[in-house]
């Protein structure tokens, strides 16, 4: 972690916000002239009450660390730059409150509601509808040594480790469906004090919170010009009302911010909210699921490129052959209009391009079916601040097109997307879970 990953934010905030008290004084002075107007019926004064700064930024890899940038945006590969947003709300303070410099002890961590805490530390997914998936293994295990237990009501299917036994494709679909469902985070749990020396992403979050805690002293020290004596009571003292951030940290398999040399990384999305209270900054951290499943706008851009580059005749022919029925290209293509039943995954994140998988569930000839498509050498370009365009530099390949209950994921397919991918996915979630386990524990 660099000494100050938020240097640019810090420079802007100190440059901009240090003018805030003086700006409030200027408003009072601007009202001054009405005091001289003849028979002024309402000699009131303008008072600057609240200011909110939304800082759009990107996280950029800087050697072995990450820094926050808010100037020029670019879209390179997803690995290099990540979009983020920081919000600061400043308001006038009543009375002679003490300057806020500390973080309240009542910090809270919330996890996605799909993650069920377990005393044994195992990773347990609530897939909804009475289904659950338990992952047997640890982040230190090799992906091919992972096993799972897929619960469906009272029934349980053992997902054996190793290359020999395939896994049911329906289990993958159930996991993807659950992971893609957005929803309120699960119940919070107490978070201990953040340690700046902590090498994981938690130390990095500490740097952001420390930046917030330094705001009020900076505002209190800001230079202010003179004001007429009788306006002194209207002078405002400024303080932090709220700070928030939507950040993503690329972490390695140990849950530490990933250096350049690390090939296997994933994004851990953090939403941080810090509210000023009498006890200090009350912190709440929502840790989201890793970015294996893609969300808009990247997802929309990839779907458009998949739609354009896929040979839908081949997909329909393969599905028809496995169903022993007639399926038209339009039948399958229409599945794209059901966003709740299609999932895009980033299988690999490389320096210049990424590898993607599209999983589609739909109905054909009266049966539930599954189609999996693979795209390699995919790049993303920015067509505007919030508009992304995807390009696949090789053709889209068909992996599976069959009734769901027939799909068995063999360890390795010619193109990927088999049991190996499923295990890699679960292994990724285990590494993410390790980050959760590294969260500073609350004092007993």
């Amino acid at each position, binding site marked *: 972690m660099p000494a100050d990953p938020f240097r*640019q934010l810090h420079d*802007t905030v100190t*440059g*901009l916000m240090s*003018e*805030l008290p003086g*700006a409030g004084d*200027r*408003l009072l*002075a*601007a009202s*001054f*002239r*009405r*005091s*001289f*107007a*003849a028979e002024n*019926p*309402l*000699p*009131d004064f*303008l*008072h*600057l*009450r*609240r*200011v*909110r*700064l*939304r*800082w*759009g*930024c990107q996280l950029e890899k800087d050697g072995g660390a990450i820094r926050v*940038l*808010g*100037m*020029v*945006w670019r879209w390179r590969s997803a690995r290099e730059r990540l979009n983020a947003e920081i919000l600061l709300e400043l*308001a*006038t*303070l*009543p*009375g*002679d409150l003490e300057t*806020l410099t500390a973080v309240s002890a009542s910090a809270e961590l919330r996890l996605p509601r799909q993650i069920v805490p377990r005393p044994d530390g195992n990773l347990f997914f609530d897939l909804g509808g009475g289904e659950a998936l338990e992952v047997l293994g640890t982040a230190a295990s090799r992906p091919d040594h992972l096993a799972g237990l897929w619960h469906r009501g009272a029934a349980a299917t053992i997902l054996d480790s190793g290359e020999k036994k395939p896994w049911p494709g329906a289990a993958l679909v159930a996991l993807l469906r659950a992971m893609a469902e957005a929803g309120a985070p699960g119940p919070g749990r107490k978070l201990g004090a953040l340690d700046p020396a902590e090498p994981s992403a938690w130390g990095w979050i500490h740097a952001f919170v420390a930046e917030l805690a330094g705001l009020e002293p900076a505002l209190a020290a800001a230079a202010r*010009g*003179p*004001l*007429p*004596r*009788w*306006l*002194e*009571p*209207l002078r*405002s003292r400024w*303080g932090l009302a709220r700070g928030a951030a939507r950040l993503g940290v690329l972490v390695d398999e140990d849950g530490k911010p990933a250096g350049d040399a690390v090939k296997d990384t994933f994004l851990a999305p953090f939403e941080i909210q810090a509210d000023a*209270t009498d006890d200090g900054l009350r912190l709440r951290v929502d840790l989201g699921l890793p970015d294996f499943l893609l969300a808009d706008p990247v997802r929309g851009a990839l779907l458009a490129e998949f739609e354009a580059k896929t040979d839908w005749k081949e997909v329909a022919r393969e599905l028809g052959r496995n169903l022993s029925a007639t399926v038209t290209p339009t039948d399958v293509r229409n599945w794209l209009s059901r966003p709740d039943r299609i999932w895009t995954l980033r299988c690999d994140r490389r320096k210049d391009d990424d590898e993607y998988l599209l999983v589609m569930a739909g109905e054909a000839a009266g049966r539930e079916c599954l189609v999996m498509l693979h795209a390699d050498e995919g790049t993303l370009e920015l067509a505007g*601040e919030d508009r992304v365009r995807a390009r696949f530099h090789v053709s889209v390949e068909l992996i599976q097109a069959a009734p769901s209950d027939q799909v068995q994921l063999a360890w390795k397919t010619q193109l990927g997307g088999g049991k190996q991918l499923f295990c890699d996915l679960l292994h990724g979630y285990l590494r993410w879970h390790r980050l959760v386990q590294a969260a500073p524990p609350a004092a007993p």
Partner: protein
Amino acid sequence: MPTKPSRSDRSTAKPAALETELDALTRALRRKAGSETRRRRLGIQYQDLSRRLAARQRELEALAAAAGLRELAAPATAAGPPAGVRARGPVEAVTRDVPRAAGKGFAFAEFLGEVGRSMVTAQEALDAQSKEYQASPGGQAMPSLFRLPRLSAGMRFAIEESTGSKLNLFFYSRQSAASETYQHTLDFEMVAVPPPPGGPPAAAPGLRQLLDAAEREAALRPLREQAAATAGALGLGTAELEASWPRLLLWELAAGAAPLLLLGHARDDETRGTLQLLRRPPAAPLLEAVVAPGSAMPPALVKELAVLAAEQARFLAP
């Protein structure tokens, strides 16, 4: 026993909203209007007042939207409210793109000062309308005053790196750097609050006028050293300024390490006057117009300043 303030009790100075005042006026008019004829007559007056208030609000939109352009931007070329202005509700909320001012550095305080001055100008227009209304039959039946209680606004800006590692803030225009720079937004809210106890200078006659020669010399020396700029700020020619030094009125607004003075001047023909805040170096600017030369100043005040200036000049004459 006074209770200790809490962080949750943030400043709540929130004057009654304009729409609330209008609603109250409507209810009062209905109560007071006895006969149908009287009700109809008051209704017409009320509609007229509403139209005039709406016109004032439109002026405020344009004024607030134009704020910040004078010092920060290229000259406006189009008449009327600039593109990008939108209004929400009865009290204005303005979001606009402000043309870029490269190399100006952070100018947030100046920007807000301009917005504030525009709001004061709009309030002054409302003061005049209030006065007109009070003189009308409707106003005599139900005396009311109107004011702008709140202004919310937002600006979009970007950051660029200038020489060295210094960061500059600049404002967006849709045509310029939007394709390559990150966009940040800053929203702010201003409210009108009552004057503090003790009141403004009109209600504080104890204001000390600087008449001691040494004190005056210390205060005026920085202005003498920048005579051309001073003449410009006061709306005088250089020769005219030279003759006016003894006529410059100075009142002490704040003493101590960062003193602040009020400087007043009126031409002896009583045609116009100015009031300026005067700071001591290194504070900048030295002069800041409270009432700029050429701006409308109540004739009674111009006359008062001219009379005081003449008396002072006589007093200071050797």
